[in-house]
């Protein structure tokens, strides 16, 4: 095996804080190395140094044995290093071919773009990836998974032989992920060196032949994947043993809190179930099953056209998120950046946004003292790591942002809380804290609706599990009856019957 990329003693600090400390890493041709670590461990910084976004303070970077210094991302790309980001960097209005060749379109007669060559090269790239995506389609009309393929094609078009993937499956359904895994395997057999960053440890074990673990800026483990198991990997990541992975305490449910009967809404078709106070209901289903759509309808973001929603025995009609908050329904969105938190604003103004009326004095002004007290209480109880209550949330790690998002939903005092993918993009340590939090809320008598595409998570912390497909609850299991296979069977059987 030949070493394509070699990092030697890379260090980097920001305003005096060591983010990377003498990190070594080797990437071999025809090999996939998994990069694991909690949020803030330095994975992103390391990748940004490799791809020329940041400059290193110390250390050497060698590409095919030659020492290199990259000052801009473009230099790294021209040298054959490509990164596929968590967030896609494509222009939705442009076609697939235009996106792939953006900034280096093949020139023809009179310096105009040679559409023919561009088209042809795109077809070739798609063939290499075994994808049926037309070069003329606009990127905005593609699914997230297909858009990712366009990004990968773009990387290949640079003749990249070092390819870094940063949380590529975060936005993909299980089926779409399978396609991506296939492509990763193909690239590996074509002799590319790949680095694969993921919070999903199963994926690392499935795809990677090597694994490296970063913790607090240091490389604490690296070696063959087959020599390590999941527990050991987690231990390296967090530097301690996490007791049980999914904390669960059986609760004594109270009266029926929420009754949903034959709800119809966009993407939701005849949805019925009921939930009691002090219960965690897990909603499982494939992507596009109607799980998130139901959450949005219940929260007043889309219109419920038919059906009944009862909270504590009283029928409620919810047309806007404002109605939902007053009816005692809270929603923690799956899209923290776009829908959950104002990234440039501080923790305090984000947390209290839905509940400012609670802090009003009789003159209609906001009592800053009481507001800050409430915010500090949540920072403490949720152990949110932040320098102050005014720090912009964009500077927090994913896990801490999620805690702020949950606090924001809890401050108005809801009776029902919908959690949509609460642990997406959150590291192992923070995941466990969020699970513990869910247990606490349950014990306080809240009714929790947990939407997640992480099946082990659903099985781990729910009291009852609803399987959703085609906008409809198709099966219900108690915690004792449910297992991974039964749920997948129910979901898939139903999907296939309808197709």
């Amino acid at each position, binding site marked *: 095996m030949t070493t394509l990329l070699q990092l030697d003693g890379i260090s980097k600090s920001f305003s005096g804080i060591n983010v990377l400390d003498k990190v070594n890493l080797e990437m071999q041709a025809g090999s996939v190395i998994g990069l694991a670590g909690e949020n803030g461990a330095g994975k992103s910084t390391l990748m940004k140094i490799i791809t020329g976004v940041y400059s290193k303070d110390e250390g050497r970077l060698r590409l095919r044995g030659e020492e290199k210094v990259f000052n801009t991302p473009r230099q790294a790309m021209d040298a054959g290093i490509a990164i596929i980001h968590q967030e896609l960097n494509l222009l939705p209005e442009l076609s697939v071919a235009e996106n792939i060749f953006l900034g280096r379109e093949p020139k023809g007669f009179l310096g105009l773009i040679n559409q023919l060559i561009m088209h042809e090269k795109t077809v070739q790239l798609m063939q290499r990836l075994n994808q049926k995506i037309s070069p003329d389609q606009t990127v905005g009309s593609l699914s997230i998974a297909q858009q990712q393929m366009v990004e990968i094609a773009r990387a290949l078009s640079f003749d990249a032989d070092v390819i870094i993937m940063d949380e590529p499956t975060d936005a993909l359904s299980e089926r779409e992920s399978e396609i991506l895994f296939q492509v990763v395997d193909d690239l590996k057999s074509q002799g590319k060196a790949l680095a694969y960053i993921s919070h999903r440890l199963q994926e690392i074990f499935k795809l990677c032949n090597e694994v490296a673990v970063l913790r607090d800026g240091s490389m604490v483990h690296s070696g063959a994947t087959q020599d390590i198991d999941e527990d050991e990997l987690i231990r390296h990541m967090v530097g301690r043993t996490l007791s049980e992975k999914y904390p669960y305490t059986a609760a004594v449910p109270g009266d029926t809190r929420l009754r949903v009967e034959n709800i119809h809404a966009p993407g939701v078709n005849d949805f019925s179930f009921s939930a009691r106070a002090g219960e965690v209901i897990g909603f499982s289903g494939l992507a596009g099953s109607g799980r998130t759509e139901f959450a949005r309808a219940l929260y007043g973001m889309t219109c419920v056209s038919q059906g009944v929603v009862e909270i504590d025995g009283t029928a409620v009609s919810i047309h806007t*998120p*404002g109605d939902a908050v007053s009816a005692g329904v809270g929603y923690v969105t799956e899209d923290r950046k*776009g829908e959950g*938190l*104002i*990234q440039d*604003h501080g923790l305090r103004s984000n947390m209290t946004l839905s509940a400012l009326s609670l802090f009003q004095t009789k003159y*209609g002004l906001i009592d800053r003292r009481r507001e800050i007290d409430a915010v500090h209480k949540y920072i403490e109880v949720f152990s949110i790591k932040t320098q102050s209550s005014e720090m912009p949330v964009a500077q927090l790690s994913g896990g801490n942002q999620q805690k702020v998002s949950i606090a924001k939903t809890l401050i108005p005092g809801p009776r029902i809380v919908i959690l949509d993918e609460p642990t997406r993009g959150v590291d192992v340590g923070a995941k466990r804290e969020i699970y513990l939090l869910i247990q606490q809320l349950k014990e306080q008598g809240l009714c929790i609706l947990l939407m997640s595409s992480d099946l082990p998570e659903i099985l781990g912390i729910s009291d009852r599990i609803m399987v959703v497909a085609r906008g409809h609850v198709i099966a219900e299991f108690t915690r004792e009856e449910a297992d991974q296979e039964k749920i997948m069977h129910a979901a898939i059987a139903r999907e296939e019957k309808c197709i």
Partner: protein
Amino acid sequence: MHLKKVLIDNKSLIGLLLLMCAVSLFSPNFLTVDNLLNILRQTSINAIIALGMTYVILTAGIDLSVGSVLAFSSAICATLIANDSSMIVAVFATLAVGGLLGAANGVVISFFGVQPFIATLVGMTIVRGATLVYTGGRPISTGDFDVAESFYTLGGGYLFGIPIPIIIALVVFVIGWIILNKARLGRYVYAIGGSEQVTRIAGINVNTVKMTVYVLSGVMAALAGIILTARLESAQPTAGAGYELDAIAAVVLGGTSLMGGRGTLVGTLIGALIIGVLNNALNLMDVSSYYQQIAKGAVILLAVVVDSRVKHTS
């Protein structure tokens, strides 16, 4: 480190002070009480418009119609005074007219989803046209009734030796500051500018907040119109042309982001003062009014470039 932060946080104020020092070197008449009060009085009209503009820009919007709204309100106000209506009635009716015009902008923006730039550009044209139709293109005098004389004090009078427009501007700024920093509305204004989608999902009625902000901007333009009418003892059909740009410049010089969500009213006040001092200095130095526009544009450009440089390095 700490000093640098203090300097960066107060860069508008530092800019104003530097400008004042420079001007006082060139012109001995600059640092006199009379001249400074004169600057403040001239600034008060732009400052009042810029207050409404700050609210609008904080929601990531813009209001280009303020100059036209000022002219139309001014015409209504002059007509009322000329017909011997009481001053209270004239003032409140004029403010209401400004508010209604603002509400029209708000409806087009929040309920029809038209971009603020386009909606208020259209508003600017239509309202200017309406003003010309209403006045027949001629000035309207406030007339000879007794009320016209007392009305004049709103623009030209003094209270404890301070010009009344300055007092009005100060009162409006104090109220505007309290609402923006201490009341729910202010928090929602910042939140909408930060992310409209997040604010909507947090359960806030975004459309109502946006409506309120454009109504406020219209009312402020009308208030500025009242002061101008009083001072000139007449309404000019072309009054306020180009005022939207001075107001936007004051907001931007004061450090408010045109993307919304970030900025302060104190900054806007300083921004308006910078423009006021600049106008005054160019007059004192006998710069011809043709060159004044070029000089003013150059200084604003310089300030904005320095601002974005500072943002990049910090």
